[in-house]
């Protein structure tokens, strides 16, 4: 990975300027090329960020009233808002519960598929196809499977003598149900990343190890798992950042219920702004959420730089 980075930075491919007219020409054509993207970037990303921060300092409502600046009152309110903390706690719980299986299960799937089994396309299809489905489709499928009386899951479990469970309506099971759905839906992405990494491990390492008498298990522990280290770190970080942003499938399957036990922070932002009509307050919560994401990204950058320095 470090060599790849070095190669990329060593291939600048820019033509050196030959005098002032060439330089002016470069400036002109360079800006002409980036202008369309930069215009959209400025209007639909940079400006909303600035405007959103301004809104977070106002008592702004959906109708447009309450534009006057009230300082950091929204932030102060948010920090004392038990609902915000509750939804933030739900988000963290979801992130922990989903990240662990999404790393472990994808690794197991990749290891099993990489044993060289025939029918590779079938395995890839089975595990990766769900990833491409829209959240609405996934939610419809699983709400139906979780249906307490008519769903497949209780029907299958009944064969093992399990009493019917109200998966999405029971406070004990709702979050776990959402996590199971999420693992089914998104594990294929990590699975493919692991599969690619596994197939990049040089075969010679395994040959050398078997000459030294190392068995399959020993090879897994001493070669495969350490070689997958960088991929695991990458998957972990992408997964944590993705899980913190969860909204779609939870909103569609439980609406955040029962009694708010599955409501994530993004849903709280949405509800505060668009059903509670408090856009200024919703903007403030967005910025608190953003700050958390930035902190995690900085930790990731720090870990990354330490890794490449080592």
């Amino acid at each position, binding site marked *: 990975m470090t060599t790849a980075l070095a190669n990329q930075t060593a291939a600048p491919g820019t033509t050196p300027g030959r005098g002032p007219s060439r330089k002016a020409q470069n400036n002109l054509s360079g800006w002409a090329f980036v202008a369309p*993207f*930069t215009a959209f970037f400025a209007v639909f990303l940079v400006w909303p960020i600035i405007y959103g921060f301004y809104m977070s300092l106002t008592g702004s409502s959906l109708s447009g009233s309450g534009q006057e600046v009230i300082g950091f009152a929204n932030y102060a309110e948010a920090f004392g808002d038990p609902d915000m903390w509750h939804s933030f706690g739900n988000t963290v719980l979801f992130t922990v519960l989903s990240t662990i299986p999404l790393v472990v299960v994808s690794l197991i799937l990749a290891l099993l598929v990489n044993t060289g089994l025939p029918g590779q396309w079938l395995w890839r299809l*089975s595990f990766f196809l769900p990833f491409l489905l829209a959240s609405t*489709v996934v939610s419809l499928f699983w709400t139906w499977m979780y249906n307490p009386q008519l769903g497949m899951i209780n029907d299958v479990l009944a064969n093992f003598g399990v009493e019917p469970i109200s998966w999405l309506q029971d406070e004990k099971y709702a979050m776990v149900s959402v996590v199971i759905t999420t693992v089914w839906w998104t594990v294929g992405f990590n699975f493919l990343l692991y599969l690619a990494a596994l197939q990049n491990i040089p075969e010679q390492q395994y040959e050398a190890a078997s000459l030294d008498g190392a068995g399959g298990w020993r090879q897994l522990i001493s070669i495969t798992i350490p070689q997958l280290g960088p991929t695991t770190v*990458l998957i972990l970080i992408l997964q944590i950042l993705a899980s913190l942003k969860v909204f779609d499938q939870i909103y569609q399957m439980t609406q955040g219920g029962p009694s708010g036990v599955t409501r994530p922070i993004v849903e709280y*932002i949405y509800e505060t702004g668009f059903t509670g009509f408090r856009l200024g307050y919703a903007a403030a919560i967005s910025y608190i959420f953003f700050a958390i994401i930035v902190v995690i990204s900085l930790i990731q950058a720090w870990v990354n730089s330490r890794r490449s320095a080592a």
Partner: protein
Amino acid sequence: MSTATATAEGTAAEEAASPVLSRRRPFKVRPLSILAIAILVILAICWLLPFVWSVLTSLKSETDAAATPVTWWPANGFTFDAYAKVIQDGNIPRWVWNSLLTSVAITVITVAIASLAGYAFSRIDFAGRRWLFAAIIGSIIIPPQILIVPLFRQMLAFNMVDTYWGIILPQVIAPVMVFILKKFFDQVPIELEEAARVDGANRLRVFLQIVLPLSRPILAAVSIFVFIGAWNNFLWPFVVTNNANLMTLPVGLQTVKSAYGIQYAQNMASAILAALPLIVVFLFFQKQIIKGVATTGFGGT
């Protein structure tokens, strides 16, 4: 910023080998491999069962779908009634059209502006290049979810709530794609371009006639991912549309669930209809999609 670096780090090293698609290790029959197959088959069944169960339900009559105890095989035989009802009575054809229109527009605009920008960042040494590129890459860490509130206000001001443009425009900025395309252009040999430049071709002609044709594989990969992302996007279209005639498929389906209530077969038929286009896309572009994920680590989210 760092997410992008980490994501695309493997690109150069892995591009050439095209892993995942090639099978290197020969399969040997040993007791352990039999166990591996058994576990894999069970897991694959678990992963495919939701599809099977949903398709079966969509082919039942409403009576069979709501029968207790659960019948996997419908007592009254299979029927396409649910599909017929959903297509005739519902808004589904309209939503498919809206999704197609907006996703294609988002893909075309995104790829056009991102490839122009990626090319300039790779090849043209213009003033301000460094800080602009840093700003764009830095913006990768911004979760789109935090922008819904100010963006909605902005769309109200532009009169774009409940319009196609309102759905499309905020979705066309993809900093990750600029980064990936720049990395690709960095690797295109510069000699071809220099020859054309000496012959007097301007930058735009060089870009359109030499660089773009060489970039077809990466443009295809980027387009597929942008399209899938746009097709599946839920939160923004959900926020910006209230009119059922303008909803995209994922947003419309969300309203179907409450409208059809206990019409289980119809619910599943709509879900299957919504899933079909992407399953077709996947079957056609399997290679590009899998290679795209494995080598660049981008997709979805």
